[in-house]
C-alpha cells in the first residue's frame, strides 16, 4: 500500500515502541531538480526495513545502509547525494539534482 507522511511517522513511533531500533531520514536541502521535496521522510529499522522515500528510489539503498550505522552509533549524519558526489557512479541522482539528507536515531 502507498504510505502517506502520517503513516511514516506513525510507523517510526510504533516500531520504536515495539522495541525495534529505528532511524529517521529527512531531506533537508535540494539543489536543481530533486525528486522529493525538502521535509520528506524515510524511516528505517535495524533490519533494513523502510517506509517512505527521500528520492525517486535512486539513493534509498545508500540511505538505509548509512542509517544502520547511525542506529549503531547513535550519532546523526548528514548525507549528500548528487552528480557532483564522488560516489555518483554508484548512487547518484539520475535527474541531475543534489540532495542532502539528515539521518538521526529515534531514541
Amino acid at each position, binding site marked *: 500500500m*502507498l504510505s*502517506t*507522511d*502520517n503513516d511514516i*511517522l*506513525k510507523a*517510526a*513511533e510504533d516500531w*520504536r*515502541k515495539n522495541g525495534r531500533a529505528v532511524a*529517521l531520514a*529527512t531531506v*533537508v*536541502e535540494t539543489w536543481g531538480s530533486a525528486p522529493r*521535496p*525538502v*521535509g520528506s521522510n524515510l524511516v528505517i529499522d535495524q533490519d533494513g526495513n523502510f517506509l517512505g522515500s527521500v528520492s525517486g528510489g535512486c539513493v534509498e539503498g545508500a540511505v538505509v545502509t548509512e542509517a544502520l550505522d547511525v542506529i549503531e552509533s547513535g*550519532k*546523526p549524519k*548528514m548525507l549528500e547525494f548528487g552528480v557532483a558526489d564522488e560516489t555518483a557512479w554508484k548512487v547518484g541522482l539520475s535527474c541531475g539534482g543534489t540532495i542532502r539528507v*539528515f539521518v*538521526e*536515531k*529515534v*531514541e
Partner: protein
Amino acid sequence: MKLDILAALNAEREARRAAIVVTDVESGRQRLVKSADIAKDPLRPQLAEHLRTSKSGMEATAEGKVFLTVYVPAPQLVIIGAVHISQALAPIGKLVGYDVTIVDPRTAFASPERFPDVKVIAQWPDQALPPLNVDRYTAFVALTHDPKIDDPALLHALARDCFYIGALGSRKTHARRVERLKAQGVSDAAIARIAAPIGLDIGAVSPAEIAVAIMAQITERLREEVDAEPAPIKAAS
C-alpha cells in the same frame, strides 16, 4: 529524534494541528514547536513564515544552523453527495493522500455497500459538517445538484476558508446557485472562490473521468497556494 518528541508530533498530526520540528543539524539537538506556541518562540518570524508556506527548510539563526521540518495536517477532502462521481473521487482522493469524508442525508445513496472503506455520514450538512473541522487544509466538493443539500454546505465551506471549493453543475445551474447564494448575503469575492463548472477542462465525460478532473483541480489549487497568502474571505452568515 527523541521518542517523546515523535509521539507528541504524531499526537498533533492526529488532531489536525500544524507543528514544526526544529533540528540543530550540527548537534542533532531538537525541539517540537506546536503551531499554538509559535508566537512565543525565539524563532517566531522564521517559524511563522515556514508555517505560512507549509515549506520545510534550513535557516541560519542565532541558535546556529537549524532545519525546520514543517508538518501541516494531511489535507482532507469533504464530498457532499454520495453520488456516482463520489464513488470514483473517494478512492482517488485517498490515494493522493487525503482523509476523505462523504456527507449525504439520503440514506439510499449514503450506504456502506456503495462506499466500502470510506467514511460516509448520512446526515444533513448542518449536522454533519461542524464536527469535521473543515479548515484551510480542506478541499470541499459539492456534488448533489440539490440546492437543499449543496447550498448550506457551500455556505459552511466559504466561512471556513477551505483551500478549494468546487460545485458540480452546468454554467446555467451555477448561475442559479450564484443568485441564491447572493440572496443569502454571500459576497462576489466569496462566490468567485467556488470552482464551477467543477474540475479542470480535460473533456471528462464519465463519472470517473470527472473525478480525475476534480482531483487535478484540487491538486493545482493546493500547490499554487503555497507561495501566495490568500486573502481571508468570509461568507456572510
